[in-house]
């Protein structure tokens, strides 16, 4: 019979490489999904995931409670995303916001909505993106997000508030620009 999750975590933190591999194969999809949604770039998300997985192996013996494995890996992944985003800011001044052009007609409404959201989201800081991904994508409560990120629940609430406000402002600004363009045609 195969080992359960806590047993796998326990074995992996005692240096069992097979247990670690089983854990990684089972959980890397979710970690990649988190990284991709924070960084909005497949290459950067791959870098963050790889960095996070190596860090997970390194630091597993410091995880005291195997039942906290999932939130602990989210935290490591979010921090890897911060580091990757920071490196990316240092090496490149071009943001993907500038490089994006709206898709022409075809799936217009859906794609336009998607692009607007993409541009608005990319204007947020990595910390703001992270709380939105953990709260709205993973469905964690504010308290759980606070626990994952090791920050105060009030800080999470304020990050969510300002991120949503910024997102709303971006979308409103996009809508005004579209209206102005349509009027000028």
């Amino acid at each position: 019979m195969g080992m359960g999750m806590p047993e796998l975590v326990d074995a992996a933190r005692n240096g069992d490489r097979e247990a670690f591999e089983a854990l990684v194969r089972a959980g890397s999809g979710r970690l990649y999904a988190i990284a991709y949604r924070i960084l909005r770039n497949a290459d950067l998300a791959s870098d963050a995931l790889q960095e996070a997985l190596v860090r997970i192996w390194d630091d597993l013996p410091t995880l005291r409670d195997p039942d906290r494995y999932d939130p602990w890996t989210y935290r490591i992944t979010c921090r890897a995303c911060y580091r990757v985003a920071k490196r990316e800011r240092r090496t490149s001044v071009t943001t993907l916001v500038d490089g994006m052009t709206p898709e022409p007609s075809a799936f217009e409404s859906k794609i336009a909505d998607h692009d607007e959201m993409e541009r608005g989201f990319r204007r947020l800081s990595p910390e703001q993106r992270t709380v939105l991904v953990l709260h709205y994508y993973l469905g964690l409560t504010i308290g759980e997000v606070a626990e994952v990120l090791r920050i105060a629940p009030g800080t999470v609430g304020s990050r969510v508030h300002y991120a949503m406000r910024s997102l709303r402002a971006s979308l409103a600004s996009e809508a005004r620009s579209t209206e102005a363009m349509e009027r000028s045609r």
Partner: protein
Amino acid sequence: MTREQDLQRRLVDWLTDGPVIAPTQVVDEAIKRTVGRRQHHPLWGWLLAPLDRFRAGEDTRVVILVVVLALTMLAALAIAVPLAGGTRRAPEMDPSSALSVTGATEVISESELDGVFERLVRVDASDPRVRGEARQVMSIESAPGVGLLRSTGLMRLENDWGAWEGAIHGARYPDGSELEYGWLQGHGAYEGFSYFHSTRGHTAETGRTIEGAIWPGEPPPAPDPSSLP
């Protein structure tokens, strides 16, 4: 549906629409990179691991080993304490004058557990009383969107004659420069003195510059805001 709910729904839809499977080569490469890497064990691991095995009844030899080690350490301590006391004297201190301190610190090791950072720092100060190894346990928090970090925690600086202990605070600015300060209270030979520990540096470097001072008396109490003019 309110505008807020509509925005939340759009955000959830948009976030849901994206990859959920990690690229296999990325996972394979990460697993490959961990081969031969040593895991970071917590400082107390060597103490707790044998106890776990003892509780599980797996290895009685561990019990004997722990007992022998404990007895050896006690014997060594019994010999070393009188020797140290007899040959090394604490530096003289004028009980009425303050003294400025300069020097440098160097991070020897750093680990993180559940969001709390533990650092071992070598303090090479101009005054031998505040020279030694310091342990810092810090909690670090970032301010949203502006690249500022603030830290708060405890520091204990030890050497042969006593220790300095107290709360420290710090800040890291968006350009990577760092500032850390705190009042530490003297213990052992430094009883009745306080040390203002302050360092500056940059996040890209492990070294920091000390600008401190040793003062006679306790660290200053925080003023009562109502008593200020």
